[in-house]
């Protein structure tokens, strides 16, 4: 699928782009919200400062004017209370999209998110579900530091009851947001700020990217690289370099980190015999830990070397640009891991 191919360089071969509708990741999110607000009366947006002149990095710009402040609601700075309020609206017929500028602020709302939203359907014996969508934007760089650029997917995946999505392309930024709003469960979408200007194919219609399905964005037979969010793009760059050295890696964009597509990853690992997981989060008890453990269980006999994880160091996010540079892993770490794993 050309539209899920990450556009690391904006110039994609013209044969693919001709006649194909292209939008940025940011525009794709805007369009999904616009279409959802236009077609579904139950949908409304809420969040801190979502109607201001920056419009959540441009993803909500103008929506208040078009849909009124009744449906695009600026909220008090009260993340836990507002999450509970959004949840209350969700269990009573609405489809709220709650927006946080940073995942770090979600941490304040963990009581309502984990003690309430994630368990409500179960505790009610299957009577009351919580169709709540939470968008949050992963910040990174420019000294955003320890409280403004965390990756919380590992934290959120531990307890049952939440779905967690990490779109890497414009196509999936739209498709997964629509899927989340249609889903009867609480869904958290982690969008990466560095992807907001990435261009990709985005169909005009109101389509959903299926939750729980990965996308193979490069086929290869030598090593499987499973990546999330911006690491998909790093993996695609690494794959190009490795291809020049006769190493053909398969790159899987996980898209949905919970539930995740273990069939897709297992099939790939059975073919290649090698697994590298590149996640934007931390290692301990995180997404990469879960994938390597599960794939080891499923494909033990196919594995020809121990899986490798590319994750953040065991330290909070530092501020200095010299430290940021070494803190966040990138394509060179993936290339090194591939070479290491193949050389045994």
């Amino acid at each position: 699928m050309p539209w899920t191919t990450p556009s690391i360089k904006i110039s994609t071969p013209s044969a693919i782009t001709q006649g194909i509708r292209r939008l940025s990741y940011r525009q794709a999110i805007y369009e999904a919200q616009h279409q959802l607000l236009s077609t579904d009366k139950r949908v409304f947006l809420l969040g801190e400062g979502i109607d201001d002149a920056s419009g959540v990095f441009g993803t909500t710009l103008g929506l208040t004017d078009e849909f009124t402040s009744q449906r695009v609601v600026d909220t008090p700075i009260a993340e836990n209370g507002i999450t509970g309020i959004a949840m209350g609206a969700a269990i009573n017929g609405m489809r709220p999209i709650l927006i946080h500028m940073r995942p770090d602020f979600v941490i304040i709302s963990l009581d309502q998110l984990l003690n309430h939203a994630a368990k409500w359907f179960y505790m009610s014996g299957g009577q009351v579900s919580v169709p709540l969508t939470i968008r949050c934007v992963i910040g990174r760089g420019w000294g955003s530091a320890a409280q403004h650029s965390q990756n919380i997917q590992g934290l959120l995946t531990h307890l049952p009851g939440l779905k967690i999505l990490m779109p890497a392309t414009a196509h999936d930024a739209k498709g997964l947001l629509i899927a989340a709003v249609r889903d009867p469960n609480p869904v958290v979408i982690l969008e990466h700020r560095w992807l907001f200007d990435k261009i990709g194919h985005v169909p005009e219609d109101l389509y959903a990217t299926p939750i729980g399905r990965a996308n193979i964005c490069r086929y290869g037979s030598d090593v499987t690289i499973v990546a999330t969010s911006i690491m998909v793009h790093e993996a695609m760059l690494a794959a190009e370099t490795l291809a020049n050295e006769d190493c053909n890696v398969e790159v899987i964009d996980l898209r949905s980190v919970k539930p995740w597509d273990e069939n897709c990853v297992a099939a790939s690992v059975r073919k290649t015999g090698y697994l590298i997981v590149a996640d934007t989060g931390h290692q301990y008890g995180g997404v990469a830990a879960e994938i390597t453990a599960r794939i080891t269980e499923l494909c033990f006999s196919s594995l020809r070397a121990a899986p490798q994880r590319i994750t953040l160091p065991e330290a909070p996010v530092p501020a200095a640009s010299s430290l940021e540079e070494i803190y966040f892993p990138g394509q060179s770490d993936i290339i090194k891991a591939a070479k290491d794993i193949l050389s045994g």
Partner: protein
Amino acid sequence: MTLPSPDSKTQLALYRQMLLIRHFEQKIVELYPEQEIRTPVHLCVGQEAVAAGVCAHLRDSDTIFTTHRNHGHCLAKGMSLKKMLAEFYGKETGCCRGKGGSMHPCAPEVGILGTSAIVGGGIPIAVGAAWANQMRGIPAVTVTFFGDGATEEGAFHESLNFAALKKIPVIFVCENNLYATASAIGKRQPAAGSIAARAATYGLPGKLINGNDVIEVYLAAGEAVIRAKQGLGPTLIEAETFRWFAHVGPVDDTKTGHRPANELTRWKKKCPIQHLRKALLSKKILTPDDEKIWQKKFDRSFEEALYFAKTSLPSGIEQLTTHVFA
């Protein structure tokens, strides 16, 4: 706005409701030592007037969010006794298929959309559910019951702020029973002002009432319901009351040293049921025969529900991992 006193029929209904709640709680006290109810029970004996007085105004389409101490609210809101007891007994016929226990009752058919046992946790959810009604143009009210302890949580303040801001048709009912577990309120909150007074900071009416006087509760709740339905926004009611049993379980916690005995004795004299009973008997609105007939009815329906609960199948393995996701 002052409402006229309720007519004798309504007074009788309020009395009967309190009696029903007391009856239920007494049965639980009797049954609990059998150890077949394997879920913590937070009894509301002594606090019946609040549930009865507030819920008397509500229809099935109105919603309540209660707490760990929910028996009175659920009964007054019309929850099925069978489903409630079956849930206590961990049966798949229970209101939550055995997944909720006593602390998370859910009965959407009568406006109970689920219950949080996190102190203060249900308050914002109630505000959101009420907000949804406002957005959808549904003329229903939502009540959130909570204890004095919950007013120390941020969620309480965040909810008051937002509900006042958006004029949300929600009623905050604080049952101030002067304790959170065994901590007296004086050790937890500054002496200055009441809980009700905190409403003023957020610009909504706050009313401190005698929570053991069901007529007073009924009138205060009635005003709040009218305000909410007229689009005037939320109200905070602080109903002062007292629980007769320990925080959890059928235990006299004055004997365990958790609360002073003389305090309980004083409050027992202010029993909400006796208080109204005297008035109704003297006005000949109530006769001892009425009570006998009701007691028999309560006994019969409780026995039926208990039989249902005890003979239902225990929640089976198929319940274990279902309903994690819708």
